[in-house]
């Protein structure tokens, strides 16, 4: 794995954004050649805080993506399991996920794969842990009875199939989860630890998130920042891609 440690939330976000941009540009997407970006799903539709609104306001309205190329799990589908199975098919049809970007919960879950989720699980209906429900209550005016107790989610196995995984972790409250994810063993109680067995993982975090890590670990990865920063500098653009094609090799591999 690559562990990228930045000073704070904004720097971590910016590094991650630049990395994703470079990956997309280097992939040279085009008609029929899709860069499939995977993201975890969340709340039900038609809610101002719904995942659709969140994605629209924070991502889709700023880019020129075609609506047909957006696939969001539909929590209102008549047959939820069929909806999940169809989602897995769509991923296959698009050529598999090129890059999956996600965060982790304080309990170390990736997407809604709560502690105890199978590390080979696929897209399915998942009951939410009390912690997650409490965390989501803020979107429902603090009324616990209004918070959904189930969600559709991609499975740990689904994410493991992606060609690359990027996990963003910021804040002191995530520090213990990060420790469990990378310094402890693979364990279904901390589902994000499954990515220790993925060939291509990038963890991007801020200083606060490293509070539970060994000093040795943090020093080691901070020492690699010079090399890691080559992934985001230079910043590629689609127009320049023709000339850069010969220089698109990664500086080193895991």
């Amino acid at each position, binding site marked *: 794995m690559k562990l990228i440690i930045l000073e704070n939330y904004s720097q971590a976000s910016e590094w991650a954004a630049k990395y994703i941009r470079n990956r997309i540009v280097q992939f040279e997407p085009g008609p029929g050649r899709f860069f499939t970006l995977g993201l975890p799903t969340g709340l039900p*539709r038609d809610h101002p805080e719904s995942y*659709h*609104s969140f994605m*629209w*306001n924070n991502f*889709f*309205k700023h880019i*020129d993506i*075609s*609506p*047909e190329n*957006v696939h*969001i799990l539909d929590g209102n589908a008549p047959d939820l399991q069929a909806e999940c199975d169809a989602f897995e098919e769509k991923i296959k049809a698009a050529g598999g996920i090129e890059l999956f970007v996600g965060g982790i919960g304080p309990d170390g879950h990736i997407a809604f794969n709560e502690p105890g989720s199978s590390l080979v699980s696929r897209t399915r209906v998942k009951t939410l842990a009390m912690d997650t429900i409490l965390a989501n209550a803020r979107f429902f005016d603090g009324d616990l009875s209004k918070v959904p107790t189930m969600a559709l989610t991609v499975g740990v196995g689904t994410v493991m199939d992606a060609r690359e995984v990027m996990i963003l972790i910021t804040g002191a409250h995530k520090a213990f989860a990060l420790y469990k994810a990378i310094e402890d063993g693979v364990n279904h109680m901390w589902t994000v630890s499954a990515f220790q067995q993925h060939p291509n993982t990038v963890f991007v975090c801020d200083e606060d998130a490293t509070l539970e890590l060994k000093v040795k670990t943090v020093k080691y990865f901070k020492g690699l920042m010079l090399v890691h920063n080559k992934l985001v500098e230079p910043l590629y653009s689609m127009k320049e891609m023709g000339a850069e094609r010969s220089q698109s090799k990664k500086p080193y591999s895991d």
Partner: protein
Amino acid sequence: MPSNKSVSDAPIVQFTNCRILRDHQLQREDLWVREGKILNPEKLFFDEKGSADVQLDCKDSIIAPGFIDVQINGGFGVDFSLATDDFKSGIELVSQKILSHGVTSFCPTLVTSPPSVYHQVLPQISVRNGGAHGAGILGAHLEGPFISKEKKGAHPEHCLRTFEAGAFQDLLATYGSLDCVQIVTLAPEMRRSNEVIQELTKRGICVSLGHSVANLSQAEEAVQHGATFITHLFNAMLPFHHRDPGIVGLLTSDKIPAGRRVFYGMISDGIHTNPAALRIAHRAHPKGLVLVTDAIAGMGLAPGRHTLGQQVVEIDGLNTYIAGTKTLSGSVATMDTCVRHFQEATGCSVETALEAASLHPAQLLGIEHKKGTLNYDSDADFLMLNDSLYVQATYIAGEEVWRQDALGM
């Protein structure tokens, strides 16, 4: 990009690189329009999987809802209180010219006139949507003749009337028809005014208090019976007095029925009201302030003599007086000038200044679900302005109906 819209095939226009006035703030968002209405792009994206057919770069303009002028007596040589043969073409001319001032809807106003004028003119005014031909007409504003003699201002005394005898029936007989009437200004101290106010309100007509010597309790009673507007605050009414604030006291009255708001018109041309008075009113009741021009026939023309119904007025710069007197009579200010002056005099935000000319008049007339905002599904009547609040382009129902050309004309 091919569009794949399930709801309608009409073209979708996306206005980009702009700041739009929404939720009382200027936000950096795109404005989407389809079939003359503001479109919700999120619904379009997820529900219809649709996208824009045309994208227009607004070069960082401000986009605000079109201005609504609820008190305008004429302009460009046209006087709405004169029953001429070419009255219809006169109203068309004004509605077309005011597009360049940012006005997308207006209420042609008639000053106190003899019944014959009302009977001839009112049937020629019809409520109609705006477009390339001109601003939309929301209905007539009848200012008088049921007003006070002492505060007649520029209105002709011999045409003043009362409705003591037959109350509402007298009013109906005077005007002839109330079909296209949106606002009536009257003096609430007149006998039987409360009955009349109730009848008018029942018919959906907005009642405004003005040209009156009413005290605060008379004004409050009128509001309790349905009045919701004050015609050009401070002008043609008793001045504020600390023991009887008069009509001005409505701004902070505690006798307003719950859930209702009293709006008040202000002519912010720098002449009708001292900027300090404008600031006092704005600070006392900011959400009720409605900018109006009270423009007369001479607006848009060179200084000189023009008519205002049965009177002759003289224009000298921005000042308009009844010929030979010092009695103010309407203004020659344009709506966009009023917005700019209001913003400068009060130091308020751009958003507040723009809302005083768009959202507030729409709220007054109860049409804010379709006019006066840039909310989804509202009529796409909007303006592109630069940072100094000069109108660069006017749009009605999503179509450009006026644009500032390079020569600045």
